[in-house]
């Protein structure tokens, strides 16, 4: 028995490892292990005031900090039965979409493009003055600027607060963003072509996993009060525990999702399968790409996002900045609150229990990468079943993991290992 280990997985967020066990030359078993040190976020918020939670949990992960902060806020606002003013909801959606743009551009141009060009990293491409790499990081910078204008900071945004947002961005900044947006709307299709070439990706088998996403038909997932899976099955977000049946794994620092309808696949590819308005905007059939089709789905979503951002920025330009931005809470109510959001990499769920004095009693956070963890190993097993060459096995496994756009910092905020008696 031969054991191949890819450790650390590079060009992914966080510390992960893939172990490949070979028997008689062929792939026998695959383990995807997420090895971040546990940071105990779900226990460190216990005993703290509810309004401190969003500031703390956004530090689970930098790339997804906007999604974490917004989901935590929404779960707590659901808990206290507060609906944020419409203008605040618009600003929050802008922030989330700025995050999607930034994250997708980071994944496609900084992490995937080097694979397509067979270079170790983006910097090599930038030194060569590769036009696609240069345009890609400019698009990523645009997503960042959006987050900075609307959120106050690129990473760990400060504008969203309990009950709404703190400030209305400067009008001049909004106009500048809108002008730049028009540029990106025009040149976006050219940026995507490289990611649509089947020959750029390794041979792949059909995607494993039941697609799972929030109710995308409403708006962009910020109102994700229901979860979709399979063809048309629908449940309320608060029923996520039964659906996902999360349990801890002994060999990985992240919980594993293994409900009866699972294993699940979440992320851009799942959204493309489930939501009518997210159908891929290309003629290329995504099926042949297998899991690498997630890159196509992200490229397609960039187009969708750019369109939606235009609508939102227009709303801001027409809005009266004197409109209320924040609702204040008259009285703290204890209770249970859940919220589901489509983070860039897929379904993100925050769930809190708060006591009558406003102190957090319990917290549960389910991240997209924790949901995808199961299908990752199965997909490696399927895609590389006939591969014998050790180097190609390791490289292939790494590229499959990378295709999911995993976020290991997120997945490993906490692990609960079940008592095995």
């Amino acid at each position, binding site marked *: 028995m031969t054991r191949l280990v890819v450790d650390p997985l590079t060009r992914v967020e966080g510390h992960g490892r893939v172990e490949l066990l070979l028997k008689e030359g062929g792939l026998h078993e695959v383990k995807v292990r997420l090895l971040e040190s546990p940071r105990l976020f779900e*226990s460190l918020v216990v005993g703290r005031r509810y309004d401190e939670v969003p500031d703390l949990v956004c530090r689970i992960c930098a790339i997804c900090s906007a999604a974490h902060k917004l989901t935590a806020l929404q779960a707590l606002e659901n808990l206290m039965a507060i609906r944020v003013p419409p203008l605040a909801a618009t600003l929050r959606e802008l922030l989330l979409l700025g995050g999607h743009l930034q994250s997708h551009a980071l994944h496609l141009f900084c992490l995937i493009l080097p694979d397509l060009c067979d270079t170790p990293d*983006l910097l090599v491409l930038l030194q060569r003055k590769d036009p696609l790499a240069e345009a890609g990081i400019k698009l990523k910078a645009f997503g960042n600027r959006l987050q900075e204008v609307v959120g106050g900071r690129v990473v760990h945004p400060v504008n969203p607060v309990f009950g709404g947002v703190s400030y209305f961005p400067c009008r001049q900044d909004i106009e500048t963003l809108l002008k730049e947006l028009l540029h990106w709307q025009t040149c976006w299709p050219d940026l995507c072509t490289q990611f649509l070439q089947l020959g750029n990706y390794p041979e792949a088998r059909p995607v494993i996993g039941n697609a799972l996403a929030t109710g995308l038909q409403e708006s962009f997932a910020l109102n994700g009060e229901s979860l979709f899976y399979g063809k048309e099955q629908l449940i309320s977000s608060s029923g996520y525990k039964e659906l996902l049946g999360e349990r801890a794994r002994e060999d990985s620092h992240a919980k594993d999702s293994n409900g009866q309808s699972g294993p699940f696949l979440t992320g851009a590819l799942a959204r493309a399968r489930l939501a009518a308005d997210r159908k891929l905007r290309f003629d290329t059939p995504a099926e042949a790409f297998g899991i690498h089709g997630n890159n196509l789905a992200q490229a397609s979503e960039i187009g969708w996002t750019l369109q939606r951002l235009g609508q939102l920025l227009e709303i801001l330009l027409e809005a009266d900045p004197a409109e209320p931005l924040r609702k204040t809470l008259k009285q703290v109510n204890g209770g249970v609150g859940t919220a589901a959001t489509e983070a860039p990499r897929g379904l993100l769920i925050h769930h809190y229990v708060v006591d009558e004095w406003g102190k957090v009693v319990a917290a549960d956070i389910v991240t997209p990468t924790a949901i995808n963890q199961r299908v990752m190993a199965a997909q490696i097993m399927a895609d590389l079943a006939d591969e014998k060459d050790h180097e190609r096995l390791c490289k292939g496994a790494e590229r499959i993991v990378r295709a999911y756009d995993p976020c290991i910092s997120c997945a490993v905020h906490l692990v609960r290992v079940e008592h095995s008696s």
Partner: protein
Amino acid sequence: MKLKPPITLAWTRFTSCSGCQLMLLNCESSLAELAQVVALREFPLATSTECKDEEIDVGLVEGSITTPSELERLLALRRKVNLLVAVGACALTGGVNSLVRGERRQAMTEVYAGQADEWNTFPPQGIEHFVKVDGQIPGCPPEQGELLNSIGALLHGGWPGHQVMPVCMECRINENPCLLERDCAPCLGPITLAGCNARCPSLGVPCEGCRGVVAEANRDELRRLFITAGLTEQDIRHRLERFGEAP
């Protein structure tokens, strides 16, 4: 010591959110220029180049130390880099990771049950607890300008001047209304190290102290102001300890 470009640089990440790395990667317009003067030997978020054993000019460290294996990696890094720089709140003081401090053993047992020992972790700590640190870049996340300035200064054989004033002063320079006075908001500007140009208070958001505490901070006065503003002792403690200021 003036270093000859390209300087070799290794970015090492321990327990953290990758935000500090991301802030550097977010300096999009400077990346091409940076690539001319810096040879990246390790930067896990962006490159699959592996760091081979060799002498490295500068090591940038993000994250807190929480496991024996992280400690081993930190010590090995210290031996091969000429200058070691701690980047961000986690590397400086442990950051939000260390908020479980004190109750950690209990939390670990609750969470991991029988496997608690297997994870083999200890309370998160800043890297200065273990190795000599030559430079610090504070913040959660650090400011992009500060990251680039520091790398630029290293290229010229120096290090940016040490910041001595609090965020409060930057607010005055920017003529911001005082959030503590106006809204009774729990703003940590009076005791927090400046350098962010009062980023949050300028937007009307109270400072959460992510850059750490300034030298000669008047903690007693801040505590008095907070109590006047209606905060409880516990609220004050939670607010202060978020970025490593022990109550």
